[in-house]
């Protein structure tokens, strides 16, 4: 079976919504465009210029996640 045939089988098993999402992913990947954030900075560039010390974990969390917060996979 060719890759295109495998792809057709995968698409045939998708709902319309899943296919729409998959198409958006394919189009985005084919376009090769790097997304930018709401401030116009390219994704993947946001940490450039940040003091490396900022990225060093101290082992002491500043964030507490209380019970009742959803687990979204």
């Amino acid at each position, binding site marked *: 079976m060719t890759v295109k045939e495998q792809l057709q089988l995968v698409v045939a098993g998708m709902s319309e919504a899943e296919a729409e999402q998959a198409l958006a992913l394919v189009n985005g990947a084919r376009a090769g465009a790097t997304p930018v954030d709401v401030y116009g900075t390219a994704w993947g560039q946001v940490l450039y210029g940040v003091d490396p010390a900022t990225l060093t974990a101290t082992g002491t969390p500043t964030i*507490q996640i209380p019970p009742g917060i959803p687990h979204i996979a």
Partner: protein
Amino acid sequence: MNHDQVQVRALAPGDLQDLAAFACSAGTPWEELVQQQLRGPLPRRYLAAPPRFDGRMLIARGPDGRLLVVGAHHIEPTLVPVVGYTEVIAVAQHARGTLIGLPDTEQVSLGHFMLLTIFQQMRLLGRHRRTFARIDRRNTASLALCDRAGLSDEHPDPHHPGLVQRWGELPQ
């Protein structure tokens, strides 16, 4: 509203219609920017995010199905483990002031609830323990939210003088 009355899930193409009319701005420049992005390109940007950025947009709806709050985060793949960047938290105008009841703790705002949900997802995904958001310096409400949520370490943003970066550390 109790926490189990809020349904949070990943953005799906079927949500785009609701987002096109999403109102989260009271007129400030930073709110207008986010509202314009959410009504326009941002959701599709997340749906089509290249895998290396693992873009995730979460939406939360209330018991009546109305959209309450939107959050979006992706990774900045410079380090291993990758660093999670919370790009947007936006509360619907009609839901402003709503508090969410959590077990064993005080109530939290909808924005705080979504930010904690993002942190929970980052933790589950094994992100770098250091995480951050970028905030307009004039946006005192979001800066206060960062303080409450543990993003309290402030640094200038190297790309934009009008922004600050707020950093914090996730629990294991």
